[in-house]
């Protein structure tokens, strides 16, 4: 069953030859104004509704009848992760345009998992993952050392940069008088400090109006409490909480 919708073509995709049902995947030629080296125009096929079980390799297998495939890009979108939706889009880049055209004419795809190239799923996959997570301590040490060496050399490079060829020193925040770091927390702290110091200067109950105001404030506080309590009680009332029995 192949039909066309908004320029998309529908093809059934099966997991293996034993499968009794199939996903409908929708494909069309990738065309977008923004150029991307990884998705060369004319050679890239845009596919949607790729089931979660499919991997890049297995898609290669599935589309192999069309011709040689350079790479498959499975698009993991933020949205998909947040919604817990594992269905994805894929970009399949063929080495020749003819293959792309052939792909669009295909009536049927190969299954994702074949006996030669099985897709590892389920318990075997997890066992394999477990085994490969156990790493020899020496090897791990090497990896860490590598990584640290890289980091250190980067750091050194940065340091050297501060004095340039002509002997000028770049002034950075790490100097003798480094000034304030530009952090949000520092800024709020400063603001608070200023407010506080201005508050400390004034006398609190010196003028009559101040006393009057503090009284009013007290009443306002009581009122506010009252309003809040009222709100709570109203909520409880709505929930029919006051029916004792």
């Amino acid at each position, binding site marked *: *069953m192949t039909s066309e*919708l*908004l320029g*998309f073509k529908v093809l059934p995709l099966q997991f*293996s030859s034993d499968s009794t*049902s*199939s*996903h*409908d995947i*929708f494909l069309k030629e990738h065309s977008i104004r923004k150029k991307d080296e990884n998705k060369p125009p004319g050679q890239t096929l845009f596919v*949607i*509704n790729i*089931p*979660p079980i499919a991997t890049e390799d297995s898609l290669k297998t599935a589309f192999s009848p069309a011709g040689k495939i350079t790479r498959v890009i499975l698009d993991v979108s933020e949205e998909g*992760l947040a*919604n*817990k*939706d*594992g*269905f994805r889009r894929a970009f399949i880049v063929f080495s020749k345009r003819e293959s792309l055209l052939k792909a669009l004419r295909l009536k049927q795809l190969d299954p994702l998992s074949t006996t030669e190239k099985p897709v590892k*799923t*389920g*318990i*075997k996959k*997890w*066992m394999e993952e*477990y*085994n490969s*997570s156990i790493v020899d*301590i020496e090897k*791990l040490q090497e990896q*860490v050392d590598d*990584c*640290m060496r890289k*980091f250190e050399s980067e750091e050194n490079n940065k340091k050297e940069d501060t004095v340039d060829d002509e002997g000028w020193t770049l002034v950075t925040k790490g100097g003798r008088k480094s000034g304030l*770091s*530009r*952090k*949000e*927390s520092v*800024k709020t702290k400063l603001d608070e400090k200023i407010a506080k110091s201005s508050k400390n200067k004034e006398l609190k109950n010196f003028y009559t109006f101040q006393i009057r105001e503090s009284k009013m404030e007290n*009443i*306002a506080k*009581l009122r506010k409490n*009252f*309003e*809040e*309590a009222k709100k*709570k*009680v*109203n*909520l*409880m*009332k*709505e*929930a029919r*909480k*006051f029916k*004792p*029995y």
Partner: protein
Amino acid sequence: MKNIMFETNCAQSCDTEVVNAVTDSSKKRKRSDISNKGSIKKKCKNAQFKLPTVEELNNLKETENLFNNNLFRLQIKELISEVEIKHKRKRRLSEWSRIFEMFLDTLPTYECMLDEILKGVHGVKLIHKLGEYQRIFKTDHDIPLKFCRPHSYHKFGLYENNALAGPALYTNYNLVLPKQTLHAKDFLNNRYLIKRYYYLLYIVEELKTSNLATNLEIDFHEGNHLLPIIKLEPTGCDKTIISIYVTPASECFKPQRFLPTMNNLKFDLYDTELDAKILKEQPTVYYNNLIAHDVALKINNDLIYETLNGQTNIQEGIKLLCIWLKQWDLNVSFGSFTENMILYIIVYLFQKKKINQYMSSYQVARNFWSFLGTTNLITDPVILADTTIDYATFSVHSQDAVLILDKTGCYNASNFLTKEAFGKIQVECQRALELLDKNTNNSFQQLFLTKQPFYLQYDLILDLSKSIPLKQNYRNEEIKRSMYVGYDELFKLYQVFNIVNKAVSKRVNNIVPIIEMDKNNLKKFFMGVNLNPMTAFGLIEKGPALNDLAQAEEFRKFWGHLSSDRRFRDGSTNVAVYFTTNTIHGKRKIMKTIFDYVISEKLGLEYRMLFYNHYEDILLSKRLVPSYASGANEETSLKGTHSLDELGKILRSLQIPLKITGVQGVSDTFCFTEVFPPIPSNFKEGNATSVQGNNLIFANINQKVGSLPRYVQPLQCILQLEHSSKWPNNLQALRGVRLSFFITVSKLLQNQYNILSNIMEDFMDVYYNGLVFRFRFHTPKEIALVKKFTDGDGITRFVESTESQALERWHIMPKVVSALKGVQSTYPSYGPGTALIKRWIRAQLHDESHISDIVINLINASLYINAAESPPNSIDGAFFRFAKFFSEFDWKLQPIIVNFNDDMSKEEVSTLESKFQANRGAYSPLFIIMQYDQGLSLLTQTSPSEEVLASIKRLSKQCVDCMSRVVFDPSATMSIKEMFKPNLDGFNVVIHIQPLLNTRIHEALVLSTITNRIVVEKYKTTEDDKIPIVGFDPVEKYLSTLRENYGKYAVFFHDSYGGSVIGVLWNPQVHQTLDFKPNHVNAGKLTGNKITFNVDAVIEDFWNLGGELVKTIERR
């Protein structure tokens, strides 16, 4: 489970609710806002600062002085208006009263002899009919009876004093017998009671012909079978019940005649077969009090009326107290605390000027509680009489009775209130005060608004109803028995009660008889027991010293074969009972052993022990047990904790540049709430595994998987390091440094102590004492780096993200877990109790992703910390309290407050609360307030959802309903199967797991007795120890794969403890048919031009994703 809904707009609806409430409360303000939209803020401020009126000022001041706080005041107001009796109802009653009084005034007169009634020989039809009623009283000789219109009649009771809490209306009539109907000596030998009884019946018969009443019946005053009254529903009034009392005219009998020193029954009129001499001479305490009630009724009611008349606040206070009494089930039993007693005590307090007319209802209630909570009415009685009477006679003759003496000083209103029941009332009063002082959002609700059934207030309930009628068991207690003449059943019951009480008195805080009477017969007999956690689980019941021969012999006789002579460490030799056990579970079982011995063996009675030690079996029935003695989960949890302590010591002693300063456990095992704490064990290469370095790994991956090694749970721990400023400022580098730190530690452990360890990206597994400890550490810098973000202005901001929150969780978890451990050490039932709750929630297929372990721990901890009742002492108790709480839990209004050690001040808590209430929609469905996460409720951000909470609430409700069924219907059961077996009916798809590949299958729920237990051999350190395959749970991996990929389309349910089914529920939205658009083709198939959900393919995906793990998939 069927009804789980996918509500996406619930947050919105919540918001609008809040908004509505706001508009309600400040309509006035709102109006002014509309007229002047430009300056809303200013206006609001003005409204707060406008000049107060005198009335408002007074009101505000009053709240401060007379009530706990605003909220309390408003709640009281609301509650009082809710229980206000409708005007219509009042009006109808007063109309009815007018007609009824006319009826009384026109009653016809009859005269006859008692014998004529009994033999049915009198010619008048009405008198003939009286003979058909059951005969309650016997007397010594024939007496003349006269029936005529009453001398006078009075209304009395709470309603007449305007102190009745509605909505139903109860009121009483007191008909005073004319003097000529009574003889001066009629108080003797039941004569008065007979006259009273037949007068009542005469009224009944007359009423029957009058059309004034429906549902006319003979009832008994406070269940006292010798004090019949008429109960009727007046015609034309709804929800109104009238009780009619008959009393003698005041000058007929002298009240002094009924002091407890007097004998007023000279013959054996109640078939006691007691010695005639004893009968004649011993005081008839209960009989006397009975008549004293009638004699003094009018006097007392007049006093009450005088005192309360016009005192609105006191009347409201009484209403509150009556509601409290009812809600806390304190008046359910025969001989319990009654509303009349509240009246007497309030009058007393008024007399003593402890309450006055200027007090608010809140203060009245508060003073009442504080008085009753601190006054022992046995030694300091309440006496309303003016004359200083000698109450000592009462105490001596009524045997430590609780005394509330009336105006005449001769009637004791609390004659049937036992010392023990009074003790319980005192505890409740103290608790009520505590709740007032705590002044949390909930205290009002707990006091007045929610029903606290009696069976949930005790640690266990003994039900002896099956042994009714109780056997005769007198033995030299004739004199005592003569006191109870007329109440023989009660006497027998107290005997049983006293023996049980004697056996456990040291181990309990209270043991209270709860009795239901049906006329003279016992109907139900319960005992509520609250254990004393300090002594209840003691192994030894120490008796008197051996050389105290008489006492020792008595002790031996009491305890029978359980007792033995023992020498103690201090050299003393005593007779004692020693219970052998070496598990905590065994200690909890001691109570059962004692009851079995005392009730079944010694007294020969049949009994049921409810709500104790029953569901605990769930925690006990395990397929995998350790070689050492163990009961529930305590022993094994303790092993883990000890091993971590030891390992911590080693780690702290390591010579490394950055020292380890501490280790903290974060697994549930460390706060004893883990259902299956890991058992120390040796691991060797097996069929399915092979060795790689120090580790076991899976062998033969490419062949068909036959079986898998069982699940080994890693114990999560956090390392604390010395402070250092040298951590790099780069996330990658920082993590690199951490890895090399792990490597150093790992090498040192291996070389110096021969401890195996294994390093993964984020953590290090250490195999020690047969357990696997998983250590992590996250420096604050790491969290900061993850959060760090520089905005366009060059200002550095720290932004929360899922990753940073996950790290933060690791940061707060150790604090939470150690605080929970503190809860466990204060309340030993907390840990295993939580484990049981967890087991139950998981058994109902809600797993970690629905509601996490730590959230369950915290909810239950909040119940212990904020307990209104005393915290439970048994595992079952913890479970039932949780169910009770959850069945009433309203998460929309109410945050969970877990204030460990009261570290947060009241203000802090209330600020957080009001923040929560003001903006409810912005917070997660469940909101937990505690001191460790700055009011962010970090632990509930992703789960539980509204639907899961609703589902648990529904299940809890069923559980609580089931409890009340079990209490009142002995044939009802509450089997483990019923409560723990999930219902699979509602699911769309059920995935069955291959049991052989389920590595946690040994944790699965066993509903029958286990036959093939596997005992884990004792752990021994050996040379060829290997680190096992840790934390490998394929079902869990499968589930998380499913959830990640299909979470949008379906919800998955699974019992994490070895469950072999996964229930799938489609999201109702998937069934929509959509137009073709690239945005919503996912998981769809093309049908015509539309997209529909591709069910077949998705289910096949489920199959394929599981590989060999899935046995079958069932579509429903």
